[in-house]
Structure formats: C-alpha cells, structure tokens
C-alpha cells in the first residue's frame, strides 16, 4: 500500500517540476544557513563556519540529483532529458551523426528488404485451412536424374487414394492455358483441372456460388467453371449475375458456378479458371498415358509426415510389383507444400539473409567505432560529470540513449530504403523467387525494423559507453593532455571485425560472380539472338481433326515468313530452357528392354525450319521439309548428338529405325538427321538424349512459335499477330518473350544472388574503409605530440608513414586471418548456387583479400601521409 502510494506520488511528481526544483534549492539553502549560524554561535569565524557546514553536509549537487531521481518516475523524465541531450549533441556534430545514421540505414535497409521477401515466401501463412498438414505427392524414380519430384500418373493416383490410410483426402490437379471468350473479350488465361475434392480439402469456401461436385467431376460432365476473384473483378466488374453466366472456354460453352475468395491461391497466383478433372473410371491410365499430373493430400490428424511417407512407400512397392511395366523403379515422394513452392529459392534466400546479417554486423561495428571515437574525445566531459556527482550507470544510460536515438533514426531511414530496395529487387528477381510473393512492407516488417534498430542501438552502444565511463579519474587527470588509450584496443578490434566480415561477404560475392560468368560463358547450343517466341493454343473443339491443326500452323508459318523483317519462322511443342516432356524410346533390332531399364529421351515436336531458326547446327543428314509435315508421310525422326552417342554408340545413326512412345500407336521411323545438343533444363547439367518429331506425326494444339527477326525481335510480333488473326479472328497469341530472356531466366537465381551479394559486399567494403580511416586518423591526432617529437629528433617522413601504416597493417592482417577462416567455414553454404567453382576456391579468396588490402591501403594512405608531413613545431604547440 505504502509502495503504491509512493509510486503514485512519483508519477504526479513528473509534473510541476520547476516548483519542486525551487523548493529543494530553498530548503537546502536554509539548511546550510542554519548550520552556518550554529557554527558561528559555537565561536567559529565566518569562513570557518561556512567551510565546516559544507564539509559536514557533503556534496549538495549529488544530494539534489538523488532527490530528483526519487521525486518522479525515473524513466520518463530522464529518458526525455537524455533524448533532448542526445539530439542536441548530434546536431552539434552533424558529420558524425550522418555517418552513423547512414551506416545503419544501409545495414537495416538491406536486412529489412531481404527479410520482407523471405517473410512473404517462407513465413507468411498460406491462404487456406491448416496448410502445414497439406503435402504434395510426387512420384520418384531413383534411376532418372530429374525425377526426384516427378509428376504423377492418374492410374497410380487412383490406387494411392484407395489404399492409403494416412490422408484425410487426396486430390489431383493439372494446370494449362486456355482461351476464354466472354462477349467480345478473347484472351488466353491460366486454368487448372482439379478433382472435385481439391478445393474442399484445402478448406476454402466459395466467395460466391458453389464449387463443382463429385457428380460433375466425370468424363463429359457439365462444363462448369469456378473463377478467381481477380477474373470476377476484371472481366465481370464484380457483378453478382456472374453466377450462371455462359462463356466460351476452348471454343466450348461453359457455365460459371462459383467465385473463389480474394486472397486464395494454391501453389500459383495466376490461375483464373478452375475446372473439374473428369477422370474416366473405366479407363486404364497406365496403358494410355504417362505421368503428367500433380497431386496434393491432407494428412490425417495425428498422422506424422514420416508415417505417411512410410505408408506411401509401401503402397508404391506393391504397385511396382503389380504393374512392373509401368511402375518399375518408381516410388512415391511426399513433400511439404511450402517446401515444394520454394525449393531452391530457399537456399538463395537463406544465403541472402546470412549476407545481410553480416552487412548489418559491419554497419554496427562501424557505428560502435564512431561512437567510441566520439566518447573518447568526450572523456573529459564524462569525467567532469562523474566528479560532480553523476553515477556511472547514469552516464552510461545517457550515452546509450544517444546510440539508441541514432539507431532509431537509422532504422527509419533504413525502412524507407528497404521499400525502394524491395521494388528494385522484385523487378530484378528470378521468376521462381517472386512468382508467389506479394512483398509488402506492413506493420510486422516495420516492427522488425524497429526491433532490429533498437537491438543494434543497444548492442553497439554498450561497449563504447562501458569504455567511456571506465577510469573516469584518469580522464580528469589526463584531461590537460590528449587522452591516450581508452578504447583504442577495442576500436582496432572492431575494425578487424569489419575487415573479417567484409572478406566473408566479398568471397561469397566473388564465388557467385564467377559462377555467373561461367554460366554465361557456356554455349547453350542455340543462338537466341533475334528470336522471339509466343504461344498459340488452338481450341480443341474447333480444331478437332489433326489435319486442321496441321494446316493452321503450316499456313501461319508460311505467312509469317513472308512478313517484313522476318528471317525465318517455325514452331515447337515445348521451348528448350522452358519446358520439357520425356518418354521411353526403342531402337529397332534390339531385344525389348527389361522393365525399368528403358532408354528415355526428351521429346519435342517441331515444324520445318526449327533448327535454322533456333541456330541449332545440323550435324548429319537433313531437316524436316514441308513434305514431311503431312499426315500421310512416312515416320521420320531427327535426334541430337547425345542420343546418337549414348544410344547408338559407334553405329551409323542415319537410317536407323526408332520409335518413341508418345501416342496410342508408335510406329518405327527412320532417323534422317542429327543435330547439335541443346543444354536443356539448366545450363549447368548434361544435355539429355532428344528425339524430334515432325508436327504432323505428334500433333499438338498448342505450339510455341519461334520467329527469327533480321533486326529488333519485338518488331515482328505485331505482324505475326496480324497473321494469326487473319487466319482465325478469335485466336489470340500469348506469352510473347524473347529467347534471350528465356535463356537468361535459367540462371537468374545465381545472377540475382550474385548481384545482391556484390552490392552488399561493396557497402561492407566502404564501411570497413571508413572504419580503417577513422581509426588511423584518430590515432594520428592522438599521437600528434609524439610524432612531432620524433620528427624534431630527426625521424624521416617515411619512417613516420611506416609507423602509422604499420598499425593499419596489423589490424587488417588480423581481420583477414579471421575472415579467411570464416569464409572457409561459411562458403560451403553456397554450394548449391555455385557453378564451375568449388566453395573453397583459393583464387577467389586471394582476390577478395587483395581487394580488401587495396581498399585498406587507400584508407590508410591519407592519415599516414598527414602524419609524415606534420611540422614538428605545430605539433608540439598543439598542446
């Protein structure tokens, strides 16, 4: 009770401070006078009486301070006072304040922007019920390099769903692109086929209308569509009448029955139309089709991920025995949904998070260093304050307040910087990194920035304030001369730390940079210069007969080739570096392969002129001609170099009969040509054996057109669009890209990480240079007198330079030693991002050291030179 009352008195004591201050002065004065009077009465002289009274009652100011501390809630008042004091101090030294705030803003800005990206990809919850229990279900073939997370077969999916006991539910889906027609509006949109249980499994509710049911999810069921909120808003203006609207999808009538909620997305944000999968229960998918779909499942309550994996492995084992022709060597791999969405991106992000952490540490070390210099020069002031009654804790608090004020200023500026950086980063980032990220700076990010600044403020402020308040008596004693020592060791240590951290960043940046240079140096096997590509998806309903599709594309290419500025044109089913399909291949005259040991190859359907347009060299034989691109022509194939080398080793490839299992019947056909390899998929892996079909024998309704322009590739896009419209006015073209951008995209992850790391290490390097300069410049000022004496006694300027530079050399050498060790320990984390260099690449490490030493030498030059030029008389007079 008494305590409570005292606390209340303190809070109210915060107000009416001026009156209380007067009261206290008056009270102390009367106290003192009474003592003097008593002493006079005791027979002392006037001066003796005053002196005795003073001695008797001790330091008035210390007592006042103590009373003040007690008379109000300490933290409000002192903090406000300290902040005012700190602001005043910082205004007086704007150079120092700017340097410190800028250092921090750079560190905090980089950290916050990377954190924001990581947050949106790795942390932010996915927009449906209990997403942690949703897993992706893949097939896996241990024998195939690229089949760790392979798409699935509907046949296997049906058996998994029927036999498993660990999932609440399991759903299959597949994505495509289709032409949607609503009134006059014709566009290609992204659509997804899904079994009826996918949306309910995710726990999402319709925003308007309803989802399709299992009764509608049958072959030739009603064409009912669920659309995204975005499509509802942009195409239908958010009208309620959208439910029941009739539209045309792939040239067939369809009815919209539902709208998804605004923020919902599953795996990709761009799906606008959801349709029922329509699996045919009577069909044996293992006989008629391969692996081409995706599956997701929700774990039962209480079922662990590993238990589910074990059960699915067992089921896959049974299926493998039951269907050896189709399932030999295939098993099931589960993957947490979030992992499946970020996969390699995660490594890049973690590396970048680590890098910004290092950068922030360098920035903090730099500010600590600046503070230390500032406090050392204020040592006398601190000593005086302590001498007139300020406690050490009190002084430390005041100094800490200053560093926190600095940190918060840096944090605010850093947050602003981060917003700009995020915009830039999203523009530059590889597609797979930001595809699903909507990076925003919300209150959580702001909170993170605030906490980060506060923490760094306290962290980097603590050591300097400890040093500043140590041995205050020395501070007074030496005040007449320049204060020596006091934190020089710590400052050197901090600069060495900056050097070490910068070296680690620099090494990482160097390794990634070399990987990117290496990747760019690889010949991709095509000449993407001047090539533009776009997709044409013919609606199957309007182009049911293959001959109509063959005619459409043949006519289109003929007319595009006539267009001005076009050098050549062709089409392909899947663009290299973009997409792929693979199947097993048989070679005539060989015994049938044992199950699981089939030869597999990449399959592409091309039209005549493809190799010339893409710049793929024809090594043997001939290209397809217009005569080959007809339904009644004989089956003929073109294979790549790797196919000839690996599957036909030593045999003459031309004239060999092969077949590739892509369709219901796969007649043998003759190899008529061998072309150069294209570095498929990712540039840094081996090319895979490839078989090229001519379009007429493996007819796709969606083809990627490739057009080689004589000049600017963008200039031929419009003429090409006109050509397509002239054949079918309702036919749009989609996804216009240059081949160069597609090739670049394949190593954009490395390039992006390298770019950011290079930027971070440049900033770190600058900060370290400032640190080195600061320490040396300060030590020269500090030792002016000593240097003056030395010069007066005949020391040569060179000797003085060496003395000062030697100090820098020791610091840098120490930092480098630690940095090299750190680099060796940490660069292993970069492994999956590197190409053509090992994580422990000594050349890169040495180069990084060299860069650092050069920067350090420049930073050390100015102060050393100044020292050697000191006029001895001036130096001595400075005292």
């Amino acid at each position, binding site marked *: 009770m008494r305590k409570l009352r005292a606390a209340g008195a303190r809070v109210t004591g915060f107000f009416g401070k001026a009156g209380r201050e007067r009261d206290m002065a008056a009270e102390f004065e009367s106290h003192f006078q*009474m003592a003097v009077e008593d002493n006079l009465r005791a027979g002392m002289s006037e001066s003796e009486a005053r002196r005795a009274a003073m001695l008797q009652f001790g330091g008035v100011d210390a*007592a006042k301070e103590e009373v003040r501390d007690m008379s109000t809630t300490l933290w409000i008042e002192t903090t406000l006072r300290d902040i005012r004091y700190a602001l005043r101090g910082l205004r007086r030294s704007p150079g120092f304040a700017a340097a410190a705030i800028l250092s921090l803003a750079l560190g905090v800005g980089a950290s916050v922007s990377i954190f924001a990206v990581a947050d949106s990809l790795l942390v932010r919850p996915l927009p449906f019920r209990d997403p942690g229990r949703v897993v992706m279900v893949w097939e896996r073939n241990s024998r195939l390099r690229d089949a760790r997370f392979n798409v699935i077969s509907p046949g296997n999916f049906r058996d998994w769903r029927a036999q498993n006991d660990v999932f609440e539910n399991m759903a299959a889906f597949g994505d495509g692109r289709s032409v949607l027609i609503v009134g006059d509006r014709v566009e290609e949109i992204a659509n997804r086929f899904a079994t009826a249980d996918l949306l309910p499994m995710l726990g999402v509710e319709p925003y308007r209308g309803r989802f399709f049911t299992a009764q509608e999810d049958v072959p030739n069921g009603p064409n009912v569509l669920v659309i995204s909120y975005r499509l509802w808003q942009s195409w239908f203006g958010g009208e309620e009448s959208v439910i029941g609207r009739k539209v045309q999808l792939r040239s067939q009538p369809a009815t919209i029955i539902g709208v998804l909620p605004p923020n919902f997305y599953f795996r990709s944000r761009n799906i606008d139309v959801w349709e029922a999968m329509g699996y045919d229960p009577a069909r044996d998918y293992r006989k008629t089709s391969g692996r081409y779909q995706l599956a997701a499942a929700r774990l039962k309550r209480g079922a662990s991920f590993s238990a589910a994996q074990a059960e699915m492995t067992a089921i896959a084992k049974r299926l493998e025995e039951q269907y050896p022709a189709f399932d030999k060597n295939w098993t099931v791999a589960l993957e947490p949904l979030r992992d499946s969405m970020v996969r390699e991106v995660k490594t890049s992000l973690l590396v970048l998070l680590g890098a910004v952490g290092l950068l922030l540490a360098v920035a903090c070390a730099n500010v600590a260093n600046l503070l230390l210099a500032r406090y050392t020069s204020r040592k006398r002031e601190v000593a005086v304050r302590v001498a007139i009654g300020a406690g050490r804790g009190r002084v430390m608090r005041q100094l800490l307040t200053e560093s926190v004020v600095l940190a918060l200023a840096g944090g605010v500026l850093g947050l602003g910087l981060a917003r700009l950086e995020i915009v830039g980063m999203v523009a530059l980032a590889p597609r797979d990194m930001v595809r699903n990220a909507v990076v925003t700076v919300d209150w959580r990010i702001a909170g993170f920035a605030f906490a980060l600044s506060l923490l760094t403020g306290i962290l980097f402020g603590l050591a300097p304030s400890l040093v500043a308040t140590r041995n205050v008596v020395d501070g007074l004693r030496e005040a007449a001369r320049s204060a020596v020592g006091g934190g020089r060791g710590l400052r050197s240590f901090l600069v060495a730390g900056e050097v070490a951290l910068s070296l680690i960043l620099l090494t990482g940046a160097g390794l990634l940079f070399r990987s990117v240079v290496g990747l760019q140096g690889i010949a991709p096997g095509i000449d993407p210069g001047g090539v533009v590509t776009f997709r044409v998806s013919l609606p199957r309903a309007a182009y049911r007969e293959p001959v109509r599709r063959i005619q459409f594309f043949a006519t289109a290419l003929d007319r595009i080739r006539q267009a001005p500025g076009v050098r050549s044109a062709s089409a392909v089913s899947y663009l290299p570096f973009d997409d792929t399909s693979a199947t097993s291949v048989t070679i005539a005259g060989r015994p049938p392969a044992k199950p699981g040991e089939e030869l597999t190859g990449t399959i592409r359907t091309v039209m005549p002129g493809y190799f010339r347009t893409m710049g793929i060299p024809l090594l043997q034989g001939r290209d397809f001609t217009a005569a080959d691109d007809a339904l009644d022509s004989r089956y003929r194939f073109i294979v790549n170099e790797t196919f000839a080398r690996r599957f036909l080793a030593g045999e003459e490839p031309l004239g060999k009969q092969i077949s590739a299992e892509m369709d219901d019947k796969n007649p043998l056909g003759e190899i008529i040509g061998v072309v150069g390899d294209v570095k498929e998929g990712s540039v840094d892996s081996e090319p895979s054996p490839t078989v090229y079909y001519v379009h007429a024998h493996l007819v796709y309704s969606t083809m990627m057109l490739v057009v080689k322009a004589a000049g600017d590739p963008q200039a031929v896009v419009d003429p090409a669009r006109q050509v397509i419209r002239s054949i079918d006015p309702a036919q749009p073209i989609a996804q216009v890209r240059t081949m160069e951008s597609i090739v670049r995209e394949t190593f954009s992850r490395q390039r992006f990480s390298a770019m950011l790391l290079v930027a971070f290490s440049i900033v770190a390097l600058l900060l370290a240079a400032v640190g080195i300069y600061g320490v040396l410049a300060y030590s020269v000022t500090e030792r002016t007198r000593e240097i003056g004496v030395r010069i007066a006694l005949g020391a040569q300027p060179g000797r003085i330079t060496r003395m000062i530079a030697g100090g820098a050399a020791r610091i840098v050498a120490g930092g480098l030693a630690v940095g090299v060790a750190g680099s060796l320990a940490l660069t292993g984390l970069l492994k999956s991002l590197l190409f053509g260099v090992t994580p422990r690449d000594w050349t890169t490490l040495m180069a990084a050291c060299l860069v650092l030493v050069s920067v350090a030498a420049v930073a050390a030059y100015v102060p050393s030179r100044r020292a050697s030029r000191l006029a001895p008389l001036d130096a001595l007079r400075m005292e």
Partner: protein
Amino acid sequence: MGQKADVWQGTLALMVLKTLDAMGPLHGYGIARRIEQTSGDRLLLNYGTLYPMLLKLEQEGSIKSDWGVSSNNRKAKYYSLTRAGRKQLAQEARQWEETTDIIARFLKPEGETS
C-alpha cells in the same frame, strides 16, 4: 569528531519518525542535528542521506511538509508526523525491539542464557 557510523536506510527512517514524534514539527536541519545529538555525535547526517529519506517518507505518506519560519526568522520547510506515520512508527519500533532482543540473545556469552 571520532568515528561516525553510516546510518543505513531502515534505521534512519525509524530515527526520523521517532524524532518527529518526540519533537513535533521540525525542519530538515533540526532533524539532522537532533539525530546527531541523540546519538552522542556518533552519527553524522549529510544532505545526500537525509533528504532522499525525507522525500521517501513523504511519498509514502508517513510524514507531511509545510513551509514555516524558524526561530531565527528563516524560511524553512517543516516536517510533521501523519497518522499513518504514527502507526508505522509504533509498528517499526516494535519490530526493532524484537530484532535487537533476538540478536542480543545470540551475542550474550554462552551459559548466561537461561
């Protein structure tokens, strides 16, 4: 002036309260002198010890203060005991006696306890 013992917080509060109880309203200097005299000049109070204690007692409501005029016409702040202060004094005095009694028993030579 000989050796002066440091006055520690708990006992100082008790001394201040007892002094005010015995002498009636008194200013800070008077309290200090009175405590020094009562202790036979074995205790010495300086500002830094006395005034924070007075403020604490006032904040806790045990004493209150008013400005007045001293015997030799000097303006001074007079402290006096409140009702809560009287209760506190009685309670703390009792506790103190009990404590000293217990400690005294421990310090008595062996055998004299009976």
